[in-house]
């Protein structure tokens, strides 16, 4: 077919072999593919079989609430700190924000291993970009890099819902990236099983022209109310503020104290 040859379109089998096989580079900044997976292995099927009752049970850490929103003075990022494995709380002070560099943050929800690994790899790629191009990577490009990493392992059972937050030449940036290789730019996102509760509080209290203190309070409130209702979120609220000259860590407060402060009449 003339079009077939002229457009350089590779047949599917050839491309798959390139991606999964011998370590031949197919992406600009990735001279080696990280994991060569033998054809025929089905990781997502294997994971499903592991969470069946009566037998080996490997539950991934899915429970989380994270949120981020843009406002006049930058971007607020707030996360909880509970890591759960089924009904067991594996950690009450997990760190769900990765500080990629002084002007880029990434949040983590889903499988802790996947998030930590891939976002750390993203940090490496961002550093390489800066060294090669003598300028900081944009938030859009960083989120696209992460999205493309997810794409390479499509259908293999990765679980990651993350927000990439930064400040570049175009101003404050907020992108949602997940394991289906969805990438969305927006003003407000929340991820994890407590996200619906966080959306409720954030949507009703949000104004674009909030003061910085009001924005901090909205972030705290979003996480606190979500941890109150969602069994798999809890611990402390880690709050960050992305400003023009980089991010600052605002506070780290225990949700049980916060909920008592907010709902005095309730207890």
């Amino acid at each position, binding site marked *: 077919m003339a*079009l*077939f040859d*002229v*457009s*350089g*379109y590779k*047949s*599917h089998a050839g491309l*798959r072999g390139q991606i999964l096989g011998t370590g031949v580079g197919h992406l600009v900044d990735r001279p080696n593919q990280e994991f060569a997976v033998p054809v025929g292995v089905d990781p997502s099927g294997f994971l499903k079989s592991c969470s069946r009752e009566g037998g080996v049970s490997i539950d991934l850490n899915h429970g989380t609430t994270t949120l981020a929103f843009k406002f006049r003075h930058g971007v607020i990022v707030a996360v909880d700190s509970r890591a759960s494995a089924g009904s067991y709380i594996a950690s009450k002070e997990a760190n769900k924000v990765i500080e990629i560099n002084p002007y880029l943050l990434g949040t983590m929800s889903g499988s802790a291993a996947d998030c930590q690994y891939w976002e750390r790899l993203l940090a490496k790629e961002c550093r390489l970009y800066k060294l090669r191009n003598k300028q900081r990577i944009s938030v859009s490009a960083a989120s696209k890099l992460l999205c493309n990493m*997810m*794409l390479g392992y*499509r*259908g293999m059972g990765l679980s990651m819902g993350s927000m990439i937050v930064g400040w570049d030449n175009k101003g404050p940036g907020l992108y*949602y990236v*997940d394991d*289906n*290789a*969805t*990438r*969305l730019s*927006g003003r407000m*996102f929340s991820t994890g099983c407590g*996200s*619906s509760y966080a*959306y409720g509080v954030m949507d009703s209290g949000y104004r674009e022209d909030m003061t910085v203190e009001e924005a901090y309070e909205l972030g705290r409130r979003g996480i606190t109310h979500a941890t109150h209702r969602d069994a798999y979120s809890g611990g402390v609220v880690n709050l960050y503020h992305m400003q023009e000259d980089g991010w600052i860590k605002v506070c780290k407060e225990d949700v049980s104290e916060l909920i008592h402060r907010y709902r005095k009449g309730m207890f």
Partner: protein
Amino acid sequence: MEYLIGIQGQDFVLVAADNVAAHSIVKMKQDQDKMFKLSDKILLLCVGEAGDTVQFAEYIQKNIQLYKMRNGYELSPTAAANFTRKNLADYLRSRTPYHVNLLLAGFDETDGPGLYYMDHLSALAKAPFAAHGHGAYLTLSILDRYYRPDLTRDEAMDLLKKCIEELNHRFILNLPSFSVRLIDKDGTHDLEKLIPVGAK
């Protein structure tokens, strides 16, 4: 949950898509643009599984642009539609098929306007009007009833509005706004977003 519609007139194609990007019960984004510009006079509207839509549409978009760079002229809408279908078909029986439903709308110098309907099983049909999504069950009959091949631009717009009003009235999910574009011999034109109002 998502909705696409296309209406072909004498010398134009009118297309519209909803603007919601949803994940289970939550609207993550309310101003998502589901139309991808393949060239000056070809638009690809794409809905389906999260992640697959953007990846597949961008892949097609970049390949169409590459063809233009290599050969100095653009693909016609017919050729672009067949190229897209071929890609869908090739991935269909692989381990990672793309679960996307598409409408391709374009204007060709020689053939005039064209609207192509494609689905996730890589069927391809050239049609005078088409729709995707649950909303299609409610609106295809309206298109059957009122469509004429010699619709003017205003009449086509009114027909589109009739369809959107019906969704607002009968569809269980709220789709607050729709992006609308028109393709004719002068290229692609962005029209005003359609925002259905009030409960009926």
